[in-house]
């Protein structure tokens, strides 16, 4: 086993993020580690910096100070597009599925940046939809799916390129309690079966309790 595999899959050290207008100090010296296969829930009140932290950890944004490393390698020196395409799966509160495409087509979108030949994409997407229990709805557009089903399709899309890391921003924020429980079960099952590391941002105490660990943020600081 390499040292990269032994150490945390994701490590953030002393992150600072000040938005360009200089008025919002979103993160103030945040350090966090995510182990292989671990799940962490980031909680805290609105505007405390949860989403900013998630975006920096997912390579969507860069910190003004501090460093993020993935498997021991700094994100600073990485091609972030490739990192997001191959190593990270994003799940959003509003699902963000493409309305004109069917479920199976939505799952294939990230695969354009993956290593898969065109002939394999559909087969892979089919398998992923089966894995999240949506195989029977493969040809349906998002508008014909329930909100719970949409989030399942979005989770299948997040897994399209076999990422090691799943980042979820309020994954159950738009779901009722039954769908919330289903999605949490699904995320937990996928994490265990696939050995994924999961980082969730949530307001919900119930969601937070489903994670291995909870990290609380307030005014850009860990508390």
């Amino acid at each position, binding site marked *: 086993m390499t040292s990269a595999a032994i150490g945390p899959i994701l490590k953030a050290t002393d992150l600072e993020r000040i938005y360009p207008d200089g008025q919002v100090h979103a993160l103030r010296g945040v350090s966090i580690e995510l182990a292989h296969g671990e799940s962490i829930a980031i909680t805290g009140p609105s505007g405390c910096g949860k989403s900013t932290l998630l975006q920096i950890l997912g390579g*969507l944004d860069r910190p003004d100070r501090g460093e993020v490393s993935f498997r021991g390698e700094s994100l600073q020196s990485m091609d972030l597009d490739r990192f997001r395409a191959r190593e990270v799966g994003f799940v*959003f509160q509003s699902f*963000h599925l493409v309305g004109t495409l069917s479920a199976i087509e939505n799952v294939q979108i*990230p695969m354009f*940046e993956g290593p898969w030949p065109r002939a394999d994409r559909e087969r892979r997407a089919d398998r992923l939809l089966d894995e999240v229990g949506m195989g029977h709805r493969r040809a349906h557009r998002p508008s014909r799916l329930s909100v719970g089903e949409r989030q399942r399709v979005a989770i299948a899309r997040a897994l399209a390129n076999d990422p090691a890391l799943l980042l979820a921003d309020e994954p159950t924020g738009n779901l009722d309690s039954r769908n919330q429980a289903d999605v949490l079960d699904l995320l937990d099952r996928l994490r265990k079966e696939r050995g994924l590391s999961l980082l969730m941002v949530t307001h919900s105490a119930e969601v937070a309790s489903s994670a291995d660990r909870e990290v609380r943020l307030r005014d850009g600081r860990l508390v």
Partner: protein
Amino acid sequence: MRFSTLIVKNLFNRPMRSLLTVVGLAIGIGAVVALMGIAKGFERSFVALYESKGIDLVAVRGGISNQLSSNLDAALADRLRSIPGVSRVARSLVDTVAFEEANLVSVLINGWEPDGLLMGGLRVTEGRPLRMGDERTAMLGRVLAKNLGKTAGQTVDVAGEPFQVIGVFESPSLFEDGGLIVPLSTLQKLMGREGQVTAFLLAANRPEDSEAVGALGREIEAMIPGVAAVPARDYVERDLQIRLARAMAWTTSLIALVIGSVGILNTMATAVYERTGEIGVLRAIGWRRSRVLKLILGESLMLGVVGSIAGVALSFVGVRLLLLAPTARSFIDPNLPLGAVAGGLGLGLSLSLLGGLYPAIRAAAMDPTEALRHD
């Protein structure tokens, strides 16, 4: 799923806007192809008119912009024949007449010598050609005969005078096909221009040597003041109608260029604005800027391909509709040249890329976190 499937689905997601953009582009491209084609056809017809008869030089009055307004002494033909390097000389009087009953307002009437150089290149399809001694006789071009519904042996009224149709001919030039030929002396009398011609058409001894033909023209101009002797191809290039047709085609193309680009720019810019959130998601899940650029340019190009093809189809329909008017049949070639079609397609594709470029660059430059907040 292919990348192209994504492009097509995105366009079908806003069908009315895509359709209107395609229609706008198609009208622009259709107008360009039709007008370029007509202008090219003019030029081709004009060149064919001289080439088929082996004419190397056209001598008209200097400083005039149109052969119809040229006026030269017919007796100059003998001086021209005596110039070394000149092989043959033909006298030509050209004017226009109307055949109101057939709704033909401006038909070219050629006054030629029956045994002259100008009768070359004509194929008599009915009756016989002009002969020496013919007077009130006319040969009708194929298109004119069809427009007038006349055949050999019948009579036709030309400028109020009855002429016997002695034959129908076919020419490589549409201008001649749409006109008629009468003996030179008859036309001179009919138009009150006795002893005058509008042009001398000359064959050179060494037609293959364009330098020599040009030099011969300059020699003629030096010898006979007031005469402009221009190589046939240059003469066509300088012709007022040809230049007008070209200018019209280019102006229309420019307008189409602006309208088409703005139409596509507007459509794609609106699409990019509306899909800011979607583009943010694509970037978030790892799509590179170059792939976003390809997506937007691909959509724009697809609009261009469909609009251009529809435009070319429209131009063919438009030209055929124009040909329903009898007057148009005598100067519009129904077969649009391949160059005009290729030019129209090329223009349409260039326009679509040009119009899509700014929205595509804007989409590709989006910050994913900003774009995600947009929703």
